[in-house]
């Protein structure tokens, strides 16, 4: 009895000793804001609020990267395009797998602690692949946005659901594929569905209860600021012009936003206008489609916006993440860097939205020049002629990286890639595709497959190719280029030792010298890489992870 009593006391003492540690282990919003100070972890989709995908970790260097070894592999049971970037919190890796599962793994060994399975509603409508890109965490709670437009909170310790909130209706074509963003006590998400005539929005939810705190519509209603860019239809038109085009004007949010804690602004890239290709149905600039919006993180109020592609007819949605960089070009200005699907590299003052620089990073012929406020002069190509960049863009959703050490901006790009665009009238019908025409692949050789190509033995050098482009962030000038044969859908990671990790559709995972672009190491993982690499540390060992095909592979130097 006495022994038991002593054991009990010991338990209490031990618990008391552990308790502060457990509280420390919770991910507070202060920790999220200071993510750079704990490089052993990867706390948000893009690694930090600035979305640089730069890790200060430097154990793996240009000199030793050739000694990288595979440490473990986790295989997903569900086939398909796996686009997740894991989180790592104090030795535990959290990731999503198709369709909407959440998995907790030992980040040192790959052993699973738990899997939370969620089956999205059968009536979900998801354009362009049933993807999920990852999670957000606050305290001990994980947050997932689902294909059927639900926001789900999950206990990170047990994998059990805490609450679930419907963000939007699947019947109206809404879905979610992004990793949520946590700011202070709120979880912020946005909706997809721009190809189904949704009216897009960004919305914030109370992290404890799931109750909606604010909502910002990416398409203004009549009378709201920006609504003047949804112009009246001309009289006597037979162009299917829709006087209520704003009601199904698109403006999806496909990717996670960024956040500047000093300004308390959160930045979101807004998708294309609907219908995608037939501009006559929706006269005007169609704000805030193809724009970046800067929202007050507490209220969701719009502070400023910049539109990359006014009155878009190319599906050039701004399905990218604002990458925040400080003291741009030694001017003292804190900016956002943006490589847009429309083929241009942009620098904007992130406090005001002021246009500082715009310059093509791939061949561009849909516009010729910018005015001083950054508005492009558009140069539509004649019927049947190719428009550069093509429909999938000079880049797309795949994450770029910015290294504060090299001050270069690294872009996964599609070069020499064009499409032939044709608009066609299409009436809106709820839950149906609403794109208004179709782009055709353009290839230099008639009948050769364009860039939607299938098996490798049918398409080599038919039309365009992938590349990693390194731009001087100050000028947009290309410093180096790493060319691939196939295109790439892989994100980029840069490190504190000036390494750059990336993949591509060919299935190679490769390390380049971030200063020169020289190839230092590569491994063929046997399947296309459609995700972004990330890095973390356990003990004193740096790991790099990448998803290819159905496998999550983790590399490190041997001990």
């Amino acid at each position, binding site marked *: 009895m006495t022994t038991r009593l002593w054991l009990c006391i010991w338990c209490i003492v031990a618990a008391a000793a552990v308790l502060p540690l457990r509280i420390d282990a919770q991910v507070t919003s202060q920790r999220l804001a200071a993510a750079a100070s704990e490089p052993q972890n990867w706390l948000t989709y893009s690694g930090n609020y600035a979305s640089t995908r730069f890790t200060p970790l430097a154990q793996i260097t240009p000199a030793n990267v050739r000694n990288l070894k595979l440490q473990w592999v986790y295989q997903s049971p569900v*086939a*398909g*395009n796996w686009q997740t970037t894991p989180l790592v919190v104090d030795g535990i890796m959290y990731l999503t797998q198709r369709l909407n599962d959440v998995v907790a793994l030992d980040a040192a060994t790959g052993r699973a602690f738990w899997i939370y399975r969620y089956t999205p509603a059968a009536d979900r*409508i*998801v*354009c*362009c*692949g*049933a993807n999920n890109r990852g999670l957000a965490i606050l305290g001990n709670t994980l947050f997932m946005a689902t294909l059927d437009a639900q926001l789900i909170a999950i206990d990170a310790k047990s994998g059990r659901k805490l609450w679930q909130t419907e963000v939007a209706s699947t019947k109206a074509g809404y879905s979610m594929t992004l990793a949520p963003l946590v700011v202070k006590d709120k979880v912020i998400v946005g909706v997809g569905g721009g*190809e189904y005539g949704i009216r897009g929005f960004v919305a914030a939810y109370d992290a404890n209860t799931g109750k909606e705190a604010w909502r910002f519509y990416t398409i203004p209603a009549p009378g709201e600021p920006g609504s003047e860019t949804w112009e009246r239809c001309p009289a006597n038109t037979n162009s299917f012009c829709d006087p209520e085009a704003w009601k199904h004007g698109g403006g999806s949010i496909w990717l996670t936003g960024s956040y500047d804690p000093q300004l308390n602004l959160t930045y979101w890239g807004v998708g294309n206008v609907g219908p995608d290709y037939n501009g006559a149905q929706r006269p005007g600039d169609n704000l805030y489609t193809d724009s970046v919006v800067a929202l007050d993180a507490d209220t969701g109020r719009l502070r400023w916006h910049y539109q990359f592609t006014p009155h878009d007819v190319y599906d050039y949605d701004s399905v990218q993440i604002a990458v925040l960089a400080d003291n741009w070009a030694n001017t003292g200005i804190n900016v956002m860097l943006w490589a847009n699907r429309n083929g241009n590299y942009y620098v904007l003052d992130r406090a005001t939205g002021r246009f500082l620089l715009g310059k093509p990073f791939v061949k561009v012929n849909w516009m010729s020049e910018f005015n001083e406020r950054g508005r492009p002069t558009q140069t539509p190509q004649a019927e049947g002629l190719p428009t550069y960049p093509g429909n999938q863009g000079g880049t797309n959703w795949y994450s770029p990286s910015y290294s504060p050490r090299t001050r270069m901006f690294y872009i996964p790009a599609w070069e020499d890639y064009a499409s032939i665009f044709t608009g*066609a009238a*299409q009436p809106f019908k709820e*839950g*149906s*595709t609403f*794109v208004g*025409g*179709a782009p*055709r*692949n353009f290839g*230099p*050789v*008639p*009948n*050769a*497959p*364009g860039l*939607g*190509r*299938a*098996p*490798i*033995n*049918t*398409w*080599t*050098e*038919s039309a365009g190719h992938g590349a990693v482009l390194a731009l001087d962030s100050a000028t947009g000038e290309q410093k180096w280029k790493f*060319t*691939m*044969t*196939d295109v790439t859908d892989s994100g980029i990671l840069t490190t504190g030792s000036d390494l750059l990790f990336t993949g*591509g559709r*060919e299935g*190679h995972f490769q390390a380049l010298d971030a200063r020169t672009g020289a190839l230092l190491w*590569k491994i*063929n993982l046997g399947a296309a890489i459609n995700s972004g690499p990330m890095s973390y540390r356990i003990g004193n060992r740096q790991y790099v992870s990448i998803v290819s095909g159905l496998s999550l592979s983790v590399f490190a130097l041997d001990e």
Partner: protein
Amino acid sequence: MRRLLEIAGLALVSALADAPAASAQAPLHDTQYAEADIAYGATVYAARCVTCHGTQGDATGGVNLRSGRFRNAVVDRDLDRFIRAGSSAGMPAFALDNAEMAGIIAYLRNMNAVDAASVTVGDPARGRSVYDGKGACASCHRVGGTGSHVAPNLSDIGAARSPASLERSLLDPTSQMMPINRPVRVVTKDGTVINGRRLNEDTYGLQLMDDREHLHSLVKADLREYTIGKMSPMPPFKDKLSKGEIADLVAYLLSLKGL
């Protein structure tokens, strides 16, 4: 490996065995499709399908709608069901009305022949004689198990190419040469010269069929020289074959739909 082959063999046998049963079911449209349905289907395709599948039907990886063969559908009723239900691979369900469904099925079944109107298609049996005889096509190409591996295999060319494209290939081969089929010249570090045709290429390596029908797998870092030609090594048949012979040859090539 052996076991795998046996399983594959069994699968093939069961697929063949299934085929008569499948064709015994009454398809929605028998095998005739009205021109009006095909034309209407083309507009439905342009509005609903082309974003993902592309104008050539091959824009979604692993799927070639022009082949006329569908992994998940044998008869038209299967196609109807599949289109209405969507697939777990990512294709959404489409709520088409009956006319749209009839149109899209007619178009999909005829996608490879919609430009046939502009081309004279002759007699496939006579075309085969031209292929084997005057054209001497088999000295470079292969159909089924017969012929050379030097030039592209034509066993399913009728499923992959349109009549117009086949005709142009015969008259002006370079204009229709797929980029992968461009002739290459390679010099390895030890000075060996290899002339041939690429089977595959990626950033770090390439696989070749040389002009003596040997396979080579090469790492680009090991090459001293690597040149890609833009002229097709195939001679144009514009002046070698008559118009009638060209039309017959196109008909024969169109009949080659694989196994």
